[in-house]
């Protein structure tokens, strides 16, 4: 006895998936924007700090990298409000979690980027009389960006996929939309086929767009 594919029910509820996809993108964009700020500040701090600060930043990175994202999401959404008196929506909670999560990965990306800036360029910046801050802003960061942009793109793509974890706290993003349709129509194969295709196509489109940005940045003048 065969299973007959029937996509009609999926198309009827497609607005759930489309809206979910847009929300997934929104979550990823806001999270990485905050994550970039966290990552940049901590990476710059790290490379110029003493042992204690380095230790603290390294602990944060190690902690985040060794704890599953889904656990962090539970901790922040269910755990934190019971300890501190703070009310926030599931969506806010998830964005905060994903920002802190991506921040930890980006600290590493930016730190290795900063350390990869050739010594000679820093010397050249010193030689024309730039102060340390000017060297950071006008020499080290621009060069670091060229080095780290591909890694930054990859981080963004995987962050976009990570937004699916938000479904566990009922944030109505793409995976949550898929679950909703599954529960209400029982077309499990069809809905996950469609959603897989949506993640895939969006991921590729993002990658393509980001590669264009990288190329533009390399040749911008």
């Amino acid at each position, binding site marked *: 006895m065969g299973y007959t594919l029937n996509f009609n029910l999926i198309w009827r509820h497609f607005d759930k998936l489309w809206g979910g996809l847009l929300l997934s993108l929104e979550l990823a964009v806001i999270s990485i924007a905050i994550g970039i700020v966290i990552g940049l500040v901590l990476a710059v701090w790290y490379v110029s700090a003493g042992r204690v600060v380095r230790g603290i930043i390294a602990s944060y990175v190690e902690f985040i990298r060794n704890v599953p994202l889904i656990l962090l999401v539970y901790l922040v959404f269910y755990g934190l409000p019971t300890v501190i008196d703070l009310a926030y929506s599931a969506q806010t909670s998830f964005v905060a979690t994903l920002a802190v999560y991506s921040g930890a990965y980006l600290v590493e990306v930016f730190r290795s980027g900063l350390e990869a800036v*050739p010594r*000679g*360029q820093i*010397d*050249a*910046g*010193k*030689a*024309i*009389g*730039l*102060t*340390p801050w*000017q060297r950071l802003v*006008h*020499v080290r960061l*621009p*060069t670091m960006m*060229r080095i780290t942009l591909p890694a930054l793109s990859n981080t963004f793509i995987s962050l976009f996929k990570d937004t699916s974890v938000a479904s566990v706290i009922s944030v109505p993003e793409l995976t949550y939309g898929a679950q909703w349709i599954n529960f209400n129509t029982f077309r499990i194969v069809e809905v996950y086929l469609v959603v897989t295709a949506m993640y895939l196509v969006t991921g590729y489109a993002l990658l393509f767009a980001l590669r264009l940005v990288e190329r533009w940045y390399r*040749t*911008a*003048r």
Partner: protein
Amino acid sequence: MATTSDNSPALLDIAEVSKSFGSVEVLRSVSLKVAKGEVVAIIGPSGSGKTTLLRCVNFLESYDSGSIRIDGKEVGFRDGGARQRRSERDLAAMRAETGMVFQGFNLFPHLTAAGNIMLGLTKVRGKSSGEARSIADHWLGRVGLAHKADSLPAELSGGQQQRVGIARAVAMEPKILLLDEITSALDPELVGEVLAVVKSLAEDGMTMVMVTHEMAFARDASSRIVFMADGGVSAVGPPKEVLAAETTNERLRTFLARFRASQF
């Protein structure tokens, strides 16, 4: 050993500078005075401390004892007895008074040729970007690259990059220009165009200290040659004297002999 050729006050005064990397003594009580308008070439075998000495002059490297003064002002340490390192802000201001051209060009890859020159002019000299651009254009013209003003370093040949490097340094109107083996990374056919620029700067009266392996150029373009060996100044004098084949300085004779042998 007498190091100045005349009585004019030294623009650059290096006095008994010593420096060690761990247990290796790279500079041993080096003294050298350079007068305004002089072109001094530093030659010597690799590992003799030439580049380190040059990098001490604009404090890219610190040194352990002695003093380096430009126009009477100590470069890396505060004036007065205590050896206290200058603040980063002071160091930056001091470094702006010396220009440096590097063996590896070290252009900023994200900036155009003009942008490389303009950065110091706008951020350090406080010029408007319009002013900075016209200064950049002037110097790019001087080094024969007016048509490359808007090219990125990656789009330039080594010789062209190095000429931008020179323009970037001299556009800041430094009191003294430091050249660190600026042709060593170039293909032989590109060396000439870079040396021609240096020569024209010398004719303008730019004070220069250059570490070089180009003996013929050192002979033709410099007013004095310093021969360094084992971290110390081993010989110093007019090119004709230092490069004379019949020198009694054993180390210098060995160095020159090896050099002549490699050239023919």
